[in-house]
């Protein structure tokens, strides 16, 4: 560790980090805005729900596998086809939040490669692949 009184000069790595931060910031707020708007639609009853709140309250104490069977709820990406339903639309904001790191990471790959920083480019790609595999719904568990 070294300390000095000189100012920090943003170098090329800082520029990549700043780019990542800027993209992440925008996508996070988009995700949060979607989340809150869709929730307002759900609880206000403006849009029809697949599972009304009263019925949901009867089932939320069950394990997820039993809940899905009893409420006939979608798994995997099937919810996307029902996003016009108020309760399912809430998952759009959640998906944006859970997936927003992927475009941010991929955006850095070309700039790292241009600088010859292949290790960082590979790490960005690897992390993006891990999140995409998790999001794919190809891997699942059950009670």
């Amino acid at each position, binding site marked *: *560790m*070294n*300390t*000095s*009184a*000189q*100012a*920090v000069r943003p170098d090329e*790595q800082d520029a*990549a*980090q*700043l780019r990542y*931060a*800027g993209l*992440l910031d925008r996508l*996070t707020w988009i*995700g*949060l805005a979607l*989340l*809150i708007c*869709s*929730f307002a639609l*759900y*609880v206000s009853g403006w849009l029809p729900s697949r599972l009304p*709140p*009263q019925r*949901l*309250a009867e089932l*939320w*104490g069950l*394990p*997820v596998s039993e*809940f*899905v069977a009893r409420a006939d*709820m*979608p*798994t*995997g990406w099937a919810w996307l086809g029902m996003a016009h339903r108020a*309760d399912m639309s*809430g998952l759009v904001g*959640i998906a944006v*939040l*859970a*997936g*927003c*790191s992927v475009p941010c990471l991929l955006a850095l790959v070309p700039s790292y490669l241009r600088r010859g920083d292949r*290790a*960082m480019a590979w*790490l960005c790609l*690897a*992390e993006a692949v*891990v*999140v995409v595999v*998790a*999001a794919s719904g190809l*891997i*699942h*568990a*059950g*009670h």
Partner: protein
Amino acid sequence: MGQPRWAGWAAGCALMLVCVGAQAAGSGVDPGTPWWVWPLALFFACFLMGIVAVPAGIGGGTLFVPIVGSFFPFHLDFVRGAGLLVALASALAAGPVLLRSGLASLRLALPLAVLASASSIGGALLGLAMPARLVQGLLGGLVLAIVALMLVSRKSEFPQVDKPDALSHALRLHGVFVDGATGRTVSWQVHRTPAGMALFLGIGVLAGMFGIGAGWANVPVLNLLMGAPVKVAAGTSGVVLSLVDSSAAWVYLNQGAVLPMIAVPSIVGMMAGARIGARLLNVLRASVVRRLVIGVLLFAGTRALLKALAIWP
């Protein structure tokens, strides 16, 4: 200094009252209870958790799963799904600020996050496949271990790292930041990278299995083992969390274990509370709040264990 001490106690006692009230209402299972009572109570509880989490120096996600899982009527599967999203939203909101200020390092976060993200998928799959009572018991044990860690762990503000290891050198895991407290520019580097990466594999499993924010484990590994300054360790931990919790959250989402009715009031309440908590940081006595949070976690951890053993169902 009487008022700040009083304010800290008030926030903690209010949180305890909400928990006990939720437990009493939930165990009574009154079918006449309107559905909206629960998201409202959840919002209020998360708001209080957000206030006390910041001065206590732990992530709101660490408080969320043990408290909501023990005292609210939702199944632990949905609580863990919401817990991951609470930790994820908080980390995503703070991440850009930390990265811009240099208090978080993307270069340091990525190698650790790749391993922890992959293992968090395994942890989430394992957690969803295990019986709820077993998860509840393990969660109780983990929470009590976190309490022990909070009691005994020490921080090193600027650890001495004489020489980076070969992997750290190859990946150029070093950087600089301006310490706001002194105005000085601090350059840092890390060592023991392979050992740190191995520990992050385990941390990922715990994060995915219990839906619990893992800042309590990330920071000691980054700071005490790898030698990152404590502020860089805390900031980088947030970036790691934002990546690890993304992977695990997808597993819960794909299984149908994410309910917006539980997740949204929790996220909004926690983020609103954290903003108040950050403002109160210089007013509240951190040591008092920390002791109070340790007390609440001790209670929640014991409750989870007793629930798993069917002693306090």
